[in-house]
């Protein structure tokens, strides 16, 4: 495990070092270090309350970590220390986008409008911070049309094109999840953080989600993924990090993690000395 090193090759997009987050007496994250590689899907898994969402909130600036350093390395070579940026700056400048465990859409805006809001910064600039746009300058009109095209592109990818003019609050749960991802993608992120995107989806929707996420990765956006659904994790992730009680207990390829006794113990909730037993049972039961 290569945590603690200070050098950072350009194929590492995100590096979290010695991250700690304390809420009163609770250490929600305790000295966590992890890395995410560019062009990969990195999964962050762990039992309920392990601190996964808290890690996301630290990365995306919604919480200020008690300690630690979070470095984002852009394709261009630019580096950002995320713990020093305000939440909106992280999306705006460092190009990290996220979704939420409890879906947060603009439910009274239409699906299309949701995607246009996501292109706010680009459009603000194009509209000369509203002033040129008010005067009806041509370049803004072009940008606005391009924004709609971009929205259309992601609507098609997320299979929402038929619902474009409906209010976001009117969509089914699965469609809302996809819309949230499409909306995040409209900010043109280099790193996309997804908090349990498959939660509450039926198997068919879950499958479609896998395709969507792979597509996003193949277009060059790296993904950091919190997920409880193991079939999704094993299926699509290139790299898995396992958290328990705010600490990393395992880190590696899906296969490595799946067979890590600590992980099995964490998920089955057994004492350390029972781990051996569990493993032997597991082996007897045959491979899954």
């Amino acid at each position, binding site marked *: 495990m290569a945590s603690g090193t200070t050098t950072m090759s350009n194929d590492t997009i995100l590096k979290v070092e010695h991250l700690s987050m304390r809420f009163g007496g609770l250490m929600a994250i305790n000295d966590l270090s992890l890395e995410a590689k560019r062009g990969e899907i990195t999964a962050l898994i762990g039992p309920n309350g392990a601190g996964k969402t808290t890690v996301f909130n630290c990365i995306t600036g*919604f*919480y200020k970590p008690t300690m630690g350093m979070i470095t984002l390395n852009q394709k261009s070579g630019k580096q950002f220390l995320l713990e020093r940026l305000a939440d909106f700056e992280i999306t705006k400048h460092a190009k990290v986008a996220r979704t*939420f465990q409890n879906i947060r859409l603009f439910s009274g805006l239409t699906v299309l409008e949701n995607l246009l809001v996501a292109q706010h910064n680009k459009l603000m600039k194009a509209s000369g911070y509203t002033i040129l746009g008010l005067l009806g300058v041509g370049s803004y009109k072009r940008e606005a049309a391009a924004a709609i095209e971009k929205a259309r592109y992601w609507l098609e990818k997320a299979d929402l094109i038929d619902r474009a003019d409906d209010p976001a609050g009117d969509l089914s749960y699965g469609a809302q999840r996809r819309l949230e991802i499409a909306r995040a993608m409209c900010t043109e992120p280099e790193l996309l953080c997804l908090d349990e995107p498959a939660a509450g989806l039926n198997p068919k929707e879950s499958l479609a989600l896998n395709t969507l996420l792979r597509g996003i990765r193949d277009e060059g956006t790296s993904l950091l993924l919190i997920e409880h659904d193991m079939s999704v994790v094993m299926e699509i992730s290139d790299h898995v990090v396992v958290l328990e009680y705010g600490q990393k207990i395992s880190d590696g390829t899906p296969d490595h993690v799946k067979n890590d006794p600590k992980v099995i113990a964490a998920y089955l909730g057994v004492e350390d000395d029972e781990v051996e037993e569990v493993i032997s049972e597991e082996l007897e039961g045959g491979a899954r």
Partner: protein
Amino acid sequence: MEYFIQQLLNGLTLGSIYGLVAIGYTMVYGIIGMINFAHGDIFMLGGFAALIVFLILTSFFAGIPVALALLLMLIIAMLVTSLWNWTIERVAYRPLRGSFRLAPLITAIGMSIALSNFIQVTQGPRNKPVPPLINDVYHFGDITFSLKQLVIVIVTAVLLAVFWYIVHRTPLGRAQRATEQDRKMAALLGVDVDRTISITFVMGAALAAVAGTMYLMYYGVASFTDGFTPGVKAFTAAVLGGIGSLPGAVLGGLLIGLIESLWSAYFSIAYKDVATFAILAFVLIFKPTGILGRPEVEKV
């Protein structure tokens, strides 16, 4: 020094009145998350009820003992305002519960306008002076302390004790606190939520009526506009103390009473309300949920 203590006493008296009204704001806010703008006017109605009872009593029983008169004024004012607030909640707020959040706020503002104008129409627009009920004044050196101030502070303290007992030691209080925490869950566990909310309004109104009676006694005059300024100040007190918190309401009330009397004494009477509001803004900027309010965790 004497002067300072004198102002402290005055501030304490005024603060008690604000505190009583602030409790009504804070309880309703705590339980249904609504700013009950009409609460200041309930306070005004209480003052008027006491005034009218006082007039009737003194015209029929000229030599009635002051304590008895005051007690009757208090009880009747409490009863009448309770009826009003119960009905108002029933008619104007309950149908909107759970709907669009600004709707109850607007009905409350409408109710406030309607109530003050109702009194203007039925009782006339002029200020109504009443002869002083209690005249005794005590002197300690240079400090004067009037009996009416003492009555105000004592009545407030007794009521707060009773109130605290109800909220923390009775099944009713438990139902209230449960409803405050999670209305749906409370209902599932057999709490009659509608009734609990009604009782909350009744309790708030009763305290406001006491405050209204005290206010009348203290200043010796009632006006249909009395609901606004004391109402806004009591609301300010509730927010300053941390809205939703009962001790906060009392603390906020006392603070505002003190700020007001000390500012008038040492700086300028003209700007006393400016000082009150400025301090509110200042406190909120640094402590966005008030002095005793629970810090709001932004759940992401």
